[in-house]
């Protein structure tokens, strides 16, 4: 071996030992951290926004985060049991909400929406949840069940196909135009809470989300079907050996996730009262992000992830970017939220509440 070769070799060894990844990681986190802190300080120094502005934004973030959280539950439930990303879940959310629009419209035409707001709202929840639930169950039957045991990318592609299929199906059914959900009068306007004014719709949304989350929690922890779901998620074969009907359990999981998505849709339209065939796409992706952020597979994680993401989206761009003179900071919202997601995952690869290093064959 010549000396040149030895030198080259030791150089290579050195190169291999050099923790390039670590270095990049540290630099990256420092840059992001610096940006966030400097931006925040600079923004606050401008005094451009009042305390009330921040509270308003925060509350709006919590409200939209609650909706993300409930949709995210659908991702998390399915992932927890089948380990697939149900990419079409956003469309499940859309299907119920869009269909319930026609009920809401009919009710509004009859004046029933404002004379009997509570029964009307409950009816909307039921219709939306039922439709979404049926779509989710059909989806499982047609697109996912034949693919159990296939590599994980395969159901992902069917999910994407199903997602397009559902979007265009509902576009074919109900048309391409955005439609406005009729407003419910008692949900309009603000109420004073602790010196600040909060919109009534936001209160309904947050309260509704809490109820839905609690209901799901109880189902998972306290009921037979919940136990079956946890067992199948743990080990499908052993669960089957223990006498659990795996197929039924999986269908129930999709049904519950779908119903939650449909219900979340009714909350969603109280905040943003327009529906159209493409409306499920972005909330779907955001809810998925929320589920991963919180730690996919964990229903507490989904709730936490949704809230964090919602608040981050509402407050983040203005807080971090205004101060450093970036024009149109809100346009860069995906940069901020995905940037933070990356940062979180670098330090906690399993999400905020996930296992630190999840292993899965």
């Amino acid at each position, binding site marked *: 071996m010549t000396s040149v070769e030895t030198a080259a070799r030791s150089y290579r060894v050195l190169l291999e030992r050099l923790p390039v990844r670590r270095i990049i990681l540290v630099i990256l986190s420092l840059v992001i951290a610096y940006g966030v802190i400097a931006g925040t300080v600079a923004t606050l120094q401008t005094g451009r926004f009042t305390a009330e502005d921040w509270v308003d934004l925060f509350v709006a973030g919590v409200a939209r985060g609650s909706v993300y959280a409930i949709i995210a539950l659908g991702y998390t439930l399915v992932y927890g049991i089948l380990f697939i990303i149900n990419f079409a879940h956003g469309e499940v959310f859309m299907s119920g909400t869009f269909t319930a629009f026609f009920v809401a419209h009919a009710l509004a035409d009859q004046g029933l929406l404002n004379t009997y707001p509570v029964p009307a709202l409950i009816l909307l929840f039921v219709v939306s949840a039922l439709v979404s639930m049926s779509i989710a169950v059909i989806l499982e039957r047609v697109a996912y069940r034949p693919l159990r045991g296939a590599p994980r*990318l395969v159901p992902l592609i069917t999910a994407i196909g199903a997602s397009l299929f559902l979007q265009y199906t509902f576009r074919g059914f109900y048309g391409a135009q955005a439609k406005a959900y009729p407003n419910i009068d008692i949900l309009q306007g603000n109420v004073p809470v602790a010196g600040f004014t909060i919109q009534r719709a936001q209160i309904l949304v947050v309260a509704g989300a809490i109820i839905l989350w609690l209901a799901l929690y109880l189902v998972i922890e306290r009921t037979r079907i919940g136990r079956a779901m946890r067992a199948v998620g743990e080990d499908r074969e052993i669960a089957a050996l223990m006498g659990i009907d795996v197929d039924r359990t999986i269908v129930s999981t999709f049904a519950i996730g779908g119903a939650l998505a449909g219900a979340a849709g009714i909350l969603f339209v109280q905040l943003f009262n327009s529906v159209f065939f493409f409306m499920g796409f972005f909330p779907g*992706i955001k809810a998925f992000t929320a589920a991963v952020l919180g730690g996919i597979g964990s229903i507490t994680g989904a709730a936490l992830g949704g809230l964090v993401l919602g608040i981050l989206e509402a407050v983040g761009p203005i807080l971090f970017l205004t101060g450093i003179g970036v024009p149109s900071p809100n346009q860069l919202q*995906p940069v901020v939220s995905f940037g933070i997601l990356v940062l979180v995952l670098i330090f906690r690869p399993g999400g905020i509440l996930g296992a630190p290093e999840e292993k899965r064959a």
Partner: protein
Amino acid sequence: MRRLPRYVRVGLLGGFIIIYLTAVGMIAAFHERNIITGVVQFSVVLMTLVYMAAGYLAARAPKGGSPPLRPTRDALIAGAVGGVLVGVFVILMTVLADAGYTPRDMFIAITPATLDILSFDQGTYLSLPVQAVLGAVLGLAGGYLSTATPNVRSTVTRAISATLIGALGAPLFSVMMAGLGIPSRWLFRSEGLTIVGTVFVVGVTLLLRWYLLRAGGVRNALDRVPGVTRKNVNVVTWAVVGVVLAVLPWIVNTFVSDVLGTVGLYILLGLGLNIVVGYAGLLDLGYVAFYAVGAYSVAVLTARSSFLVGADVTNLAPDGFMNFWVAIPLTIVIAVIIGVLIGAPVLRLRGDYLAIVTLGFGEIIRTLVLSDWLKPYLGGPQGITEIPSVPVGPFNARDPRILYYLILGFVLVSYFVSTRLKYARIGRAWAAMREDEDVAEGMGISVIKYKILAFVMGAAVGCLGGAFFAAKLSVANPGSFTLLVSINVLAVVVLGGMGSIPGVVVGSLVLVGLPELLREFGEFRLHIYGIILVAIMVFKPEGLFPDARRARELRGEATVKEPVPALAGAAE
């Protein structure tokens, strides 16, 4: 539902499918599309196929069950049940409309005109018997096919498919025939086959079929020709493929050449992503990031509206900053740097976490090129215009045909490199890592290093694709770099068969070429795309052209029944 006899369930399903097609507007829209001009419309063909399928299935043995005792009766009933359902639907809708509950207020496609199509203009109440009889007859036909000998069955299906392919491809074929100087009016008219044309297509199919049956298959037929051996058949096949690829743009028109260029681009992208997803097993949902980086790098470096030469959209410079061929290596360097920057921090993540993070990077890049923040450099919503075409000597590369050859060249190179990589040391390391990361690590493979390597190679190829895309369009616009591109490329890879190089080619042809050629289906393009995606994945989860080893794994090692397709250079 489960209590109902199977043939009733199948029939009901068929009926529901027709109602579905009506409600999404396909029946009405496809009623304008001729299959046999003036005689049969595509809408009617759709109904026919559904009823026949119902009859066919009803007469078959269910999965894991015994065949029905009276298949003909079952098929007949299945078709009739479907027809009755459709008829009832038409009547119900009309009654509702008469009662003041216009179905159109909710389902926009259920119009009186559409219902007339379903009743074949016989009026609302006659629609029930009309559809029932139609369903019964066609169901019977389907049932007959189901019980017929394989020979008859395949002959009939081939004749039907040939007619459909001929009619649906009519615009393309007539253009190709015009390119070859053959008149086509006797064959095609108003985008459908003429009656003469139908007879011709069916006739040729039957003749070919009859001839091949007599000869006992293509191979046998060839074998009997003296002087022909398997080996020189292969040589001749490849030679023919080569010649076809070489002269293709001159047979088809510029539009088809343009589509072929787009398909080529997607093959390039697919080959790149195949390294990341297929070889290394990293789930990347943000491949568009590199596509965008490539396009924008070339745009900024070569465009006449680039800030580098002090210009913008409305104030052009006489020349770009540099020549395309100089910009390409620079673009690849940029891609490598960005690939490492993105890859290094996140590649430790597993599976779905990596998916969402890469998706995030795709969105971040798209947002950045769109943003007001970088508008002075990247043009914001207006993008960058006046990107010169690829300079290739005396030729005008704005011509889709010249571009086709350029892209074909790069595809061939990438194809070759991809194949070599797969069976090289590095490819084997990827395979080990993909199968089991921990074991691979234990075997002394530096998992992170190989992951980054795969990611960066994918990035470089993606950038190359983006560079050609920008030069092809002559503009770089943020609207071109959406999540849908990432999804498309991933679908190309998975649908073709993960890790399979020919699979990428097949996947691109099916997912990119077909939808472009089927542009006339307009608003239903993505709808049909979704259906195809689901159908192929459900019926062929290993992909259309699977990698031999992957396919074996999927079916389970012990049960290799089908012969493994011979891959060029498959020396494992």
